[in-house]
């Protein structure tokens, strides 16, 4: 019976697990922030809270851009190997 480490490239396996964790959770975080920001912007605007609405919009825009950025980075990493 061959030892586990000689059959499995544990570094590749670990990096796969780590990349999947980081990418999924990062996307979930920033996209949810984007949705939170967009929804709160509308709510605060309707309540007449202009500055708070703008801050929420900033969070929403950050979430949207960060989502696009993470996806772009992921695809770029795939292509460059």
């Amino acid at each position: 019976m061959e030892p586990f480490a000689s059959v499995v490239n544990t570094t590749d396996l670990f990096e796969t697990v780590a990349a999947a964790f980081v990418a999924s959770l990062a996307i979930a975080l920033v996209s949810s922030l984007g949705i939170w920001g967009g929804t709160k912007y509308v709510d605060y605007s309707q309540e007449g809270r202009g500055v708070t609405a703008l801050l929420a919009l900033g969070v929403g825009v950050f979430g949207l851009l960060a989502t696009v950025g993470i996806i772009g980075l992921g695809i770029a990493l795939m292509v460059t190997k």
Partner: protein
Amino acid sequence: MDLHLILAIVVVSALAFDFTNGFHDTANVVATSISTGAASPKAAIAFAALLNFVGAFISIEVAATIASDVVNQSAISGAGSLNVVFSGLVGAIAWNLVTWYFGLPSSSSHALIGGIVGAALVDSGSGAIETAGLVGKVLIPAVVAPILAFVVAALAIGLSYRIVRNLRPGPVNRGYRLGQIVSGGLLALAHGTNDAQKTMGVITLALIADGALPAGSNPPTWVIVASATAIALGTYSGGWRIIKTTGMRIIKMDPAQGFSAQGAGAAVIMASSHFGFPLSTTHVINGGVMGSGVAKRISAVRWGVAGNIVTAWILTLPAAAVIGAVTFGVTSLFGSGPVGPVIISAIAIVLIVIAFVRRSRQTEVVDVQAEGA
């Protein structure tokens, strides 16, 4: 001449497998988008087919694994080896069609690997199998990947719910539906990257066995283009029965769950493709769907349906291996020439047509009954 005829049959069979792979796996890619209303079925499938095609060009790591890390290239060479590849493909196509017929989302990838391993074992014994590659690059990732997708999707949906829990559901659902167009696209891209490469790997293996390519070669451009086209056409043709199972029967999903399941699936498949692990996209996305369901509440997952799917997963490798082995045995009765593959291909085509006709008649009956109800 005989060898080239067998090679032509193998290439056509491989592309047919690729087509059935896309056809079979359409559900994995689009089911969650359709079931949450993020996209219409036609738009989701067309988008998925296009991104499947693009994804096939991104990487060749998985193709290299299939071509060199599953069977020993030097142990199988000459006309007999082409029959091994052909028999493996028949095993995979047959198992794909059986599971399609019964609406079970089993793994096309494991069917392919199982079919080839079964045929190679009968041809050359255990020496033809790259045990370390099979275990380290196929079997262990096969176990790890769906569990990883399950855990990651559960954490992702937990995080998402925590952030949006106090918001009005209308805009939140609209936001995640929009996100699902992106996550569904990523999943389609990842699917093309991992699954189209398996066909590239098989055709490359056949070309090496034929002597048209030296051992250790990468897939030629025409192989990449043909494989990308076949899987995209298969995806466009769609597999509606399995879409129902994946998208509606495992859990009833909201858009946030669909987004998390697709995002987790895409991340796991793309990361694995990067390192050359030939995963089952079916296992991964179903793991993600179950993970996103469990995070809401454990009873949200219809465990009976999930159990049927797990059974199909467990059966796939040995079942495809047995079909591949039997096919190789039958093919060998006619020698190492093209007669065996030609006869088997003719029988397979007849059986496929019968299965399609029977299935479409049963679907028509169900539709008529549903309309009358």
